[in-house]
C-alpha cells in the first residue's frame, strides 16, 4: 500500500498545477505580456484579491494611535479625536486617518504574549509562535501562493525597501519568496546589459531554445518545461518593467504622498498593486521608543498619517479597496506605563491592529482594553485570530492546512477562529 500523505492537499496541488501550467506552454510571450497594460489590470481587478501590509517597525504605541487613553495615568499628553465613524475616537496624532476611519476596522484586544522583537514579528507575520521544526511560511508567500493567478509573470510578493529573506517562503519555494525592491528602484537585472540590445537578446534566446528542443526529445520534460517557462516569465517581466519605474509618477502625486521615503514607498506600493502584484509590504521604521516616546511618535506618525490616509483614499477612489486587504501591524505595542525617560517599552499584552478594505466591515471596532490600557477586558485575540480573519477577508479557507512532507502546517492556529465582528 502506498502512503497517501500530502496527496490532495492544497500545497501539493498548487505546485502541481504550477508545473502543469508551465508544461502546457500556455504561458509564452503572447500571454501576459501580450495584453495591454490596462486590460491586464482590469482582468486582475475583476478576479484577484490583493493585500498590502504596513509594518510599523519597532513596536508602535497603541496609545498614540488606535486606542488612546487620554486623561489617565498612562495616557500621555495627547487627546483623542472623533473620526468619520460616530463614537470611535483615535489619537490626535492621526487626524487624516480619522477621516477615513469608515474604511478601517480596529482590533483593540490583541494579546500576543511576546515582547521580543524577532519573536513578536514572527507571530504577526506567520500567525504562529516560533516552534522548532516548523518553519511556517510568512503571510506574503502564503497569499502569493494562494492568490496569484497561475501563469502570472509578476512576482507574487514584493517588499518595498525592507529587504527580503528567502526563508519567509519556507516550503512554498522561491517562486513565492519576497522580491525586494529598494524603494523607488526596480529589481536587479531587469535591464539588458551593455552590448546586448533587444534584437540580439531575442537571437540568443532563440538559439537557446533550439538547443533545448533537441535536448528534450525522448527525455522527461516536467523540469525542463519549468525551467523554460521561467525564461518566458523573465522576458514578460522585462516587458513590464515600467511598473517599477518611479519616474513615471507625476510630481504632484509625490507631493500628495509626502516627499519622504515612506511617502515614496507607499506610492510605489500603490503602483505595484495597480499592476497586479498580489502582496506588497511597506515598512515604516522606527517606533522602538524606549525614550522620548511622545516626540518620536509625533515625528513618525506625522509621516505615516497623511501618507497612509492618502493611500487608502486613493484605493477607495479607484475601486481597489473592495479587492485589496490593508493590514497595519507592528511586532507589539508599547507599555502603558511611561518610563523615566518619557519612553514606553515593549508591551504585547494589550495592543491594537488596524485592517481595512477587502472583506472588512469599515468602521467596526472589536475588543476593549481596561481604563488605563494595561489589559484586554473584552474579546482578546492573538496571531491565530488575526490570521483566520485575514484569510476569511480575502475569501480563503484558513482551516485547510498547507501540507509539507506529510505534515500539516496550519494557516491559522486551529485553536482560534476569525474575528467575525469585523468581517463584512
Amino acid at each position: 500500500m502506498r502512503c497517501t500523505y500530502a496527496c490532495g492537499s492544497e500545497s501539493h496541488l498548487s505546485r502541481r498545477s504550477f508545473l502543469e501550467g508551465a508544461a502546457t506552454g500556455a504561458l509564452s510571450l503572447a500571454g501576459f505580456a501580450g495584453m495591454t497594460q490596462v486590460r491586464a489590470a482590469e482582468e486582475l481587478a475583476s478576479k484577484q484579491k490583493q493585500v498590502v501590509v504596513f509594518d510599523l517597525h519597532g513596536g508602535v504605541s497603541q496609545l498614540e494611535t488606535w486606542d488612546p487613553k487620554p486623561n489617565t495615568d498612562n495616557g500621555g499628553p495627547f487627546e483623542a479625536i472623533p473620526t468619520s465613524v460616530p463614537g470611535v475616537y483615535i489619537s490626535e496624532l492621526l487626524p487624516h486617518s480619522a477621516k477615513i476611519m469608515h474604511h478601517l476596522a480596529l482590533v483593540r484586544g490583541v494579546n500576543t504574549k511576546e515582547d521580543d522583537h524577532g519573536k513578536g514579528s514572527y507571530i504577526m507575520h506567520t500567525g504562529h509562535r516560533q516552534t522548532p521544526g516548523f518553519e511556517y511560511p510568512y503571510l506574503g508567500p502564503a497569499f502569493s501562493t494562494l492568490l496569484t493567478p497561475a501563469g502570472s509573470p509578476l512576482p507574487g510578493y514584493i517588499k518595498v525597501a525592507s529587504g527580503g529573506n528567502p526563508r519567509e517562503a519556507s516550503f512554498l519555494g522561491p517562486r513565492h519568496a519576497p522580491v525586494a525592491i529598494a524603494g523607488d528602484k526596480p529589481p536587479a537585472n531587469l535591464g539588458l546589459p551593455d552590448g546586448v540590445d533587444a534584437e540580439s537578446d531575442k537571437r540568443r534566446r532563440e538559439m537557446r531554445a533550439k538547443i533545448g528542443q533537441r535536448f528534450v526529445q525522448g527525455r522527461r520534460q516536467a523540469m525542463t518545461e519549468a525551467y523554460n517557462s521561467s525564461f518566458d516569465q523573465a522576458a514578460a517581466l522585462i516587458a513590464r518593467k515600467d511598473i517599477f519605474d518611479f519616474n513615471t509618477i507625476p510630481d504632484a502625486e509625490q507631493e500628495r504622498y509626502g516627499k519622504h521615503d515612506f511617502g515614496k514607498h507607499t506610492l510605489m506600493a500603490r503602483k505595484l498593486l495597480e499592476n497586479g502584484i498580489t502582496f506588497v509590504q511597506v515598512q515604516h521604521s522606527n517606533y522602538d521608543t524606549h525614550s522620548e516616546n511622545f516626540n518620536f511618535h509625533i515625528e513618525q506618525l506625522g509621516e505615516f498619517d497623511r501618507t497612509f490616509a492618502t493611500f487608502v483614499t486613493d484605493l477607495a477612489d479607484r475601486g481597489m479597496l473592495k479587492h485589496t486587504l490593508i493590514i497595519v501591524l507592528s511586532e507589539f505595542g508599547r507599555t502603558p506605563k511611561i518610563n523615566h525617560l518619557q519612553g514606553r517599552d515593549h508591551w504585547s499584552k494589550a495592543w491594537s491592529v488596524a485592517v481595512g478594505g477587502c472583506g472588512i466591515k469599515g468602521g467596526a471596532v472589536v475588543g476593549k482594553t481596561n481604563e488605563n490600557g494595561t489589559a484586554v477586558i473584552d474579546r482578546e485575540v492573538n496571531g491565530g485570530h488575526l490570521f483566520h480573519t485575514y484569510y476569511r477577508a480575502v475569501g480563503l479557507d484558513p482551516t485547510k492546512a498547507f501540507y509539507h512532507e506529510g505534515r500539516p502546517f496550519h494557516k491559522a492556529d486551529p485553536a482560534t477562529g476569525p474575528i467575525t465582528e469585523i468581517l463584512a
Partner: protein
Amino acid sequence: MLTNSRMGTLARPSVATDTTGALASGADRTGKIAHPTRRDGIFWIVAATLCWSAAASAADPLHVQIDKLIAAQTPDFDKLAAPIAGDEEFLRRITLDLTGMIPNVRQAREFLADTVVDKRVKLIDRLLASPEHARHMQREFDVMLMRRLPATHVPVAEWDKFLRDSFAQNKPWDQLVREILAADGSDPAQRGPARFYLARNGDLHEITRDVGKLFLGTNLECAQCHDHPQVEEWKQEHYYGLAAFFVRSFVHTDKDKKVTLAEKAEGEVSFESVFEIRDKKSKGPKTSGLKLFSAATISEPKFAAPPEAYTVAPNDKDKAVRPVPKFSRRAKFAEFIASVENRRFCRSTANRLWSMMMGRGIVHPLEMDHALNPPSHPLLLALLTEELAAREMNVRDFLRELALTQTYQRSSQRLAAVPNQPEPAESTFAVAPLKPLTPAQFAWAMLVATDELDLQRRAQGDKFSEDTFLAGTEQRFVQLFGGEPGRPPDSFASTADQVLFLANDPLVLNLLKPRGDNLAERLLKLPADNPVAVAEDLFLSTLTRRPTLDEVKDVTSYLSGKAGDPRSQAVQELIWAAISSSEFRFNH
C-alpha cells in the same frame, strides 16, 4: 562480501520489510545464526535467498547483482529501459556526480578519443581518487548535515576542513558520523565536527529531529507532540526514546568564553500527547529511557549519590565549571547509532548514497522509511544495506559499485519509444533522471565551461586558491538557486529572478567576454571560414558533446558574415545560449 556460508536456505522465501524493528533480534528462520552480531540478519538472509531466485548470484560483483535486481522488479524491463548512455553523456554525468564539476574541453577530448575498453572504469577510479571528489563530497554533505545553518560558535571553515579531510582519506561513514556525534567541542582538535551540535545551539528537538532524518531514515517531527498521524508505526515514545540521549546536553560557556556542549548526569524526557490532553484522555506525562524505536531500553550505570555520577561535578555557585558526567548519554548515542550493527543506519546510508547517484531513493522520500512507504526494490535495498555493512561503510567503494552499474550508466533519453507505451515511472530506474545542478555545481560548471577557472589559475600562479576564488561566485549562486537544501529534485523550481541573473548579470556576462585564451577568445581565434571547428569547441566545452549537423548549421548561420565586434558579440551570445540551455541546467 557475500559468502556461501552466510547464505540462507529458506524453502519459501517471504519478504520481510522490517522497518520498525530494524534492530530487533535477528532470529534466523533457518535456525542457523548466520552472523550473531548482526542483529537483523533475517534481512540479509531473506534478501540473499531471493537474490538467488532472481538469478543474481553472489558470485557476481555487486554492480551486476544490482542490475539484475533492478531488472527483475519491473515486468518487461528490457523493453522499457533506456539504452546505455554514450561516452559523452556518461562523461558529463559521472564527472558532475563525483566531482561537482563538468569536464573541461581537454578532458572531454581525451576521454572521447580514448579507445581502451575499460575506460569508464578507469575514469571512475581516477575521479574517485581526485581531490575534487573530496571537495564535492564535503559540499554535498555539508548541505545535507547542516542545512546551511549560519556559523554559531564554530567557524564553518573548521567544519569544512574536517569533512574534506575525512572524505579525502575515505574515512568509513560510521566512523565519520561517530566523530561528529561524539564531538562536543571540548577537544580543540575536534572543534570542526562540533559544529553539528553547536550550530543547533544544543537544541533538544532540533537535534532529535535531525539525527532521525539523517541517520535513521525517519522523519519523526510529527511525533514530537503526538503519535504520527499518518505513519502508524512512528510513536511519540520513539521520538522521546531518541530525545532521551540528548536531554541532558546543553551549551556551556566556560571562564575563557569557550563554548562547548556539556552534559549533566540527571534529567529525563517528559512527554504527553497533545491529542490526549485535548480529549482529556491523558494519564499524565510519561518518560522514556534510551531507546531506539521498539528495541529494548539501553541500560545505564547506576550511581549511589549524585556527586558520584560526575567526573567533574557541576558547581551551582560557579556556572563556568563545565560538568562532566561519568556516563555520557550523548557519547552512548554516537557509539550506538553510527555502527554497522545498526542496520537502520546502514540502510538509510545506503539509500542516501544511492539517491545521490541515481537521483531518487529506493525508499523515497529518504526520510520516510516506514511500512506504508515501502522501497521500490526491497531486495535491492536489503542487499545494499548488507553490502555497505560488509564493506565497513566504505563510501568510495560503494559509490564505485553504483557508478559501474548499467542502471547508473543508462541514458536519460529513451530512443525509439514504443508508441502508446507510457513512460516508465521514475521508481523503475529504467531511464536516467534529470538532476538539477546544485547551486555549487551550477557555479562550477559555468566557470569550467567558459575556462574562467583555468584563466584564473594561470593568472594567479601559486597564489591561486580555488576556494577563495569561488567563494564569491558560489555564494551568489547559493543565494539565488539554493532552495531548500537536501531536498530531492522533485522540488525543482525556477524563478524569473534566477533567469534575470543568468541573462543580464555582470557576473555571468563577464565570463563570456573574450580574454586570456578563455572559451570566447579561443573561438574567436578559430578561422572565420571554419564554423565547424567553432561549433565543435563550443559544444564540447559547454555541453560535453559534439554538435549535431543541425547545430553546426545553426552556428554557421549565426556567425555568417560577421567580423570584428559583431563576431565577438555573436560568439558570446552562442556561449550564453549553451550555458543557459536546459541541457546545461541539468545533470542528465
